[in-house]
């Protein structure tokens, strides 16, 4: 099977080359035979099929413990449960690149399958550009990071090295593929954009066709980023979920720019404005996904999430140069057709708010990128590598994020084209007063720091704006149909009629929930370190922690020490739960990991880490974090993803009544 996997990879590379070159050549000709376009479409699907076969070949080698393959030997061993043998496919760089190839080609194949209804003149270049990403990544995989290489050893290896213990976690089964689906899906808007530029088909078609693919990718990227945060929260034992680590940032950068163009697409579709800006955003987003891959695999920055450093960085830089130069060339070629059809009529308009939203998102993107690259720049200019840490990122990004959340409340409540001042004042009076009252109440309760108070007030402002918008929609619907304004049926009817709009409101509501959770967990977090002996109690917040006993265990894959700690109420000493933080030692990897004991609650998380046990086994050191409203961060993310799904899923086609009747007759017959 390993040879078959290798063969399939090579075949995929050849087909991606044919797809790219053939697509470009056909696009450059004055006319194309339909049969040739169809062959190109099939080639695009076949690339994904071959890469699927290749991935199956590698997976088979893992599951059957084929240690003649270097990659399998390096990232698995016989004692690992089968699920981790499967996840080990993307546990190292070589396999993760193969997965990347498959997913990017898979998206291309899905677009190719859906392309029968697309404008035909767009197709040759579309297939050409859809194949460029698989071509680049299969080139890297086949020639530089081939996971099918045999192990150079004098004798057959009886067992493998084993997967990094930190990656032996169920989240690794879902987090990387979800994140990669987000990254690779963003190659689709880029392919559409370049195809539209190259073919001159610059009507709104490419924007309209791209939006759903972008939303799908964006939803996966959102889910992937949050799953990564959840994995870090559970597995790394530092009590947080986001540390502005370079690799975390690398996933966040394209999310920011993709969010920006999801908004500015609407302006182009409705007003014929921001055409050039959208091309810039789409290209930048794709370039940032490639840059993220480069960052993770080049060894240029240090990160707990990075793969081992390699010398393939130059290939990514060369590809990034090709992306930007080709985009610039095509924009120069089509510059006349990209002129805006009108200007923004008023600053009090939704398009102006969307533009402001884009500028804030780009500012955050630039700040994060600057922070990520600062060590590289500082070393280049001063000879000394200097890093910027969490304080820098928080100082710059917290105000920008709050501005972004505020704009989320403004945008939907303001009219397209031009809104009167009186209407603006009327739309936002209630949300503004509500936010002011929240700010006063929060300050009254003893929270006096500026940003937390502002964050709670802005969050409430957005929630009220969403509710006010829904209320106005219900009233307008009632006026038009004569039905009662406030009834569940009316709300459902309104939601179904404006599914995309209210789906976006759900996403915004998810962001608000996350904002509140992040603010609470950052601003009101309690963090303590303590050492206690069995029978002793340590008091923290409204809890007490009483060490009961130690429990040692030797399993197939690791040895563990568990501390059983009773979590009791500080008020009356009653038992709430027994927590069992754990230290694990993996002999094959010679690594120790901490397994956090977590009590998730709606009000707060109790997060207990066993830091160490003294040599005599009579005392243990712990770290405890009380994280207020932490669980709401994950709820907010779920709400966002649900909103993304609602917006991305196509509306059911309305079948005319006559046709429906005819089909029913046919069914009966």
């Amino acid at each position, binding site marked *: 099977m390993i040879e078959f996997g290798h*063969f399939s990879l090579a075949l995929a590379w050849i087909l991606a080359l044919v797809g790219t070159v053939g697509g470009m050549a056909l696009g450059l000709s004055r*006319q194309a035979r339909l049969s040739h376009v169809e062959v190109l479409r099939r080639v695009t699907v076949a690339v994904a099929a071959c890469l699927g076969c290749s991935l199956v070949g590698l997976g088979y080698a893992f599951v059957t413990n084929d240690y003649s393959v270097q990659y399998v030997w390096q990232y698995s061993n016989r004692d690992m449960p089968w699920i981790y043998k499967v996840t080990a496919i993307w546990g190292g760089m070589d396999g993760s690149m193969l997965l990347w190839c498959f997913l990017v080609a898979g998206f291309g194949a899905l677009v190719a399958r859906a392309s029968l209804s697309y404008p035909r003149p767009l197709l040759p270049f579309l297939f050409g550009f859809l194949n460029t990403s698989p071509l680049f990544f299969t080139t890297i995989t086949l020639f530089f990071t081939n996971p099918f290489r045999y192990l150079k050893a004098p004798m057959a290896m009886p067992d493998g090295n084993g997967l990094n213990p930190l990656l032996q976690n169920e989240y690794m089964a879902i987090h990387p593929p979800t994140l990669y689906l987000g990254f690779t899906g963003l190659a689709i808007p880029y392919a559409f954009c370049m195809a539209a530029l190259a073919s001159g088909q610059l009507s709104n078609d490419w924007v309209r066709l791209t939006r759903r693919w972008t939303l799908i990718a964006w939803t996966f990227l959102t889910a992937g980023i949050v799953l990564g945060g959840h994995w870090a929260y559970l597995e790394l034992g530092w009590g947080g979920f986001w540390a502005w680590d370079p690799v975390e940032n690398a996933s966040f950068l394209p999310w920011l720019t993709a969010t920006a163009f999801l908004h500015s697409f609407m302006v182009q579709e409705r007003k014929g404005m921001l055409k050039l800006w959208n091309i810039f955003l789409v290209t930048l987003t794709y370039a940032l996904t490639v840059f993220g891959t480069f960052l993770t695999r080049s060894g240029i920055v240090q990160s707990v999430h990075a793969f081992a450093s390699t010398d393939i960085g130059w290939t990514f830089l060369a590809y990034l140069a090709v992306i930007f130069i080709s985009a610039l060339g095509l924009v120069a070629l089509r510059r006349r057709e990209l002129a805006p059809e009108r200007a923004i009529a008023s600053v009090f308009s939704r398009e102006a708010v969307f533009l402001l939203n884009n500028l804030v998102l780009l500012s955050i993107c630039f700040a994060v990128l600057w922070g990520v690259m600062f060590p590289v720049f500082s070393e280049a200019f001063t000879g000394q590598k200097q890093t910027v840490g969490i304080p820098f990122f928080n100082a710059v990004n917290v105000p920008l994020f709050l501005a972004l959340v505020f704009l989320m409340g403004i945008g939907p409540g303001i009219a397209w*084209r031009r809104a009167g001042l009186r209407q603006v004042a009327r739309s936002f009076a209630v949300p503004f007063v509500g936010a002011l009252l929240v700010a006063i109440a929060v300050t009254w309760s003893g929270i006096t720091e500026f940003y937390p108070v502002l964050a709670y007030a802005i969050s409430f402002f957005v929630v009220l704006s969403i509710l006010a918008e829904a209320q106005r929609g219900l009233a307008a619907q009632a006026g038009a149909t004569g039905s009662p304004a406030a009834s569940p049926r009316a709300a459902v009817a309104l939601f179904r009629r404006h599914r995309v709009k209210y789906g976006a409101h759900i996403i915004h509501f998810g962001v608000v929930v996350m904002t509140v959770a992040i603010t609470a967990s950052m601003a009101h977090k309690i963090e303590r370190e303590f050492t206690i002996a069995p029978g002793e109690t340590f008091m923290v917040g409204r809890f007490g922690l009483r060490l009961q006993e130690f429990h040692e265990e030797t399993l197939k894959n690791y040895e563990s020490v568990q501390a059983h700690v009773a979590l009791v109420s500080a008020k009356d000493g009653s038992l709430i739960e027994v927590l069992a933080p754990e230290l694990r030692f993996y002999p094959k990897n010679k690594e120790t990991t901490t397994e956090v004991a977590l009590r998730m609650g709606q009000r707060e998380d109790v997060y207990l880490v066993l830091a160490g046990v003294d040599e005599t086994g009579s005392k243990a050191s712990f770290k405890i974090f009380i994280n207020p409203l932490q669980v709401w961060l994950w709820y907010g993310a779920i709400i966002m993803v649900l909103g993304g799904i609602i917006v991305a899923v196509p509306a059911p086609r309305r079948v005319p009544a006559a046709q429906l009747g005819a089909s029913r007759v046919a069914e009966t017959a």
Partner: protein
Amino acid sequence: MSMWIVAAAALSGVLAYLFVKPLFEPALGGVVVLSEQDSLRSLLDTKERLLRSLKDLELDHSTGKVSDEDYQGARRDLSLEVGRVLSEIQSHGGR
């Protein structure tokens, strides 16, 4: 013969068949003109955009985001523009 060679040959054979098949299908004998600038397509695009703007304007007015005065002015401008684009589309033979 190794199993993998059989599998590789089968995969290659299936793909070759799928690639060659469209070349002999009569339904795919036509051509697509790629270099033609489609001005009708562009006009239809503008019409679609203007109609969408009208719909947005109606919605914004019904939800109280636009004053009656602004609504009347904007509606008149958009309607005139839609009329102009529709007559251009008709002159291109479109609907």
